[in-house]
């Protein structure tokens, strides 16, 4: 309760830019913690991780969805989709 009492008013004092930086830092800290807290998983313990739905890549069936998203939006890359070469840009 003390935390809520003191932190909530402080957030009103922060600018949007500061809030974004704090959020970014929080995400970085959370990810760093997650990565450093990794337990060593043996090959025989990976039956869930080896499930094809657990692959850390986009699905084959997303291939062309990523192409139209690339053309209909300004952002691209880092999702396994096309990042250059050939236009197809109508």
């Amino acid at each position, binding site marked *: 309760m003390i935390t809520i009492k003191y932190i909530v008013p402080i957030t009103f004092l922060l600018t949007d830019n500061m809030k974004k930086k704090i959020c970014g830092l929080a995400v970085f800290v959370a*990810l760093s913690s*997650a*990565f450093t*807290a*990794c*337990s*060593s*998983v*043996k*090959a025989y*313990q*990976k039956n*869930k*991780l080896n*499930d*094809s*739905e*657990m*692959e*850390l890549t986009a*699905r*084959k*069936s*997303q*291939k*062309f*969805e990523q*192409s*139209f*998203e690339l*053309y*209909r*939006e*300004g*952002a*691209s*890359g*880092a*999702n396994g989709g096309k*990042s*250059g*070469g*050939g*236009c*197809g*840009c*109508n």
Partner: protein
Amino acid sequence: MKKISLAAIAFYMSILSTFAQTPERTVSDSSAYQSRKLKLEEVNFVSSHYRQDGNNSAVTGGIGTEKLTDFANSIDLHVSKYGLSGRKNTFNFELGIDTYTSASSDKIDPTTISSASSSDIRIYPSLNWTREDEKTGNSFGFTGSYSTEYDYQSVGAGINLTRLSKDKNRQFDFKAQAFLDTWKVILPIELRSVGGRGGEKSSGSSPRNSFSTSFSISQVINQRLQALIIVEPSYQHGLLATKYQRDYFTDGTVRAENLPGDRYKLPIALRLNYFMGDQFILRSFYRFYTDSWGIRAHTAELEVPIKLSSFFSVSPFYRYNKQDGTRYFAPYGKHSTAETYYTSDYDLSSLHSNFIGAGIRLSPPNGVLGVQRISDMELRYGHYSRSTDLTSDAITLAVKFK
């Protein structure tokens, strides 16, 4: 008697010696044997139909129809062969063919009923070779690619490198790619130097080159959770504006789109997959993107495959994207004549979009529909809506043969 016994022992020993193993003739473990013949690993076929509609076509300066259909198909073959050193060589050949029709492209020259670019075919073959040490999981490879369509040609080359940790719980990937493209410059009919019907359609060709690198680290966090972080900086140089797109100015004049000849892009993405219970999987994706044209975007996607059985799953998904547009964007008739760079392409404007849909996946052990060779089949549909009133639908079928 002694002589006979000694002779018998000598004879026995000589027979034994013919079967004796010598270090040079050690019989290898048959389980470790690797055939050096070329083996077909798998074939993937993906077919997709896409249809969109909107009313902000960049060809007509940010107004007009954006109707478009695209029928895209690709097939890729994975074949492998073990080399003399025991390393695995994988060759991945892919061929893609897109056929599209675009109503707005007809407005480049409205006097023609159907201009060449109103319907077109894009063909893009590529070949990747990867050499892998299966003991360590480390690999490296090269890719060559080509793409051609009516007004655009592209030649690409790339390298890829993978390093796996000893416990195989952490993987580092590096990729570098270069695409050397040539774009035929097509101006709107009224802006061509030799105007009029039958006049010059273009003013030559211009290069557009793209260079990208990709660094990613994936990590097994526990028995149910794994994550991946990827950074993919890229640089484009050359003709980055689409010259057949019009821009209307406050004084009523019209010009062909003009954008800077350089563009730096920086996307950073995170994937996090979690196996929840025995039936649910959470596949999440987030990307932050920024570039030198002032576009800044956040993209988040969540997909929840539900395993109804070991061989059948349903996967609803939702994707949200929000972007701040480029500083060079202005709608129809709003550009100032003092501007150096200008576009009325709503793809580069401030917007947000929603993409929602679902997929089904079948992978029965005796093959899909009883056909042993078809090991996996996915069908996926999604509806896309953008805040600029553009909507689209995409349906995709992916089949894996083994």
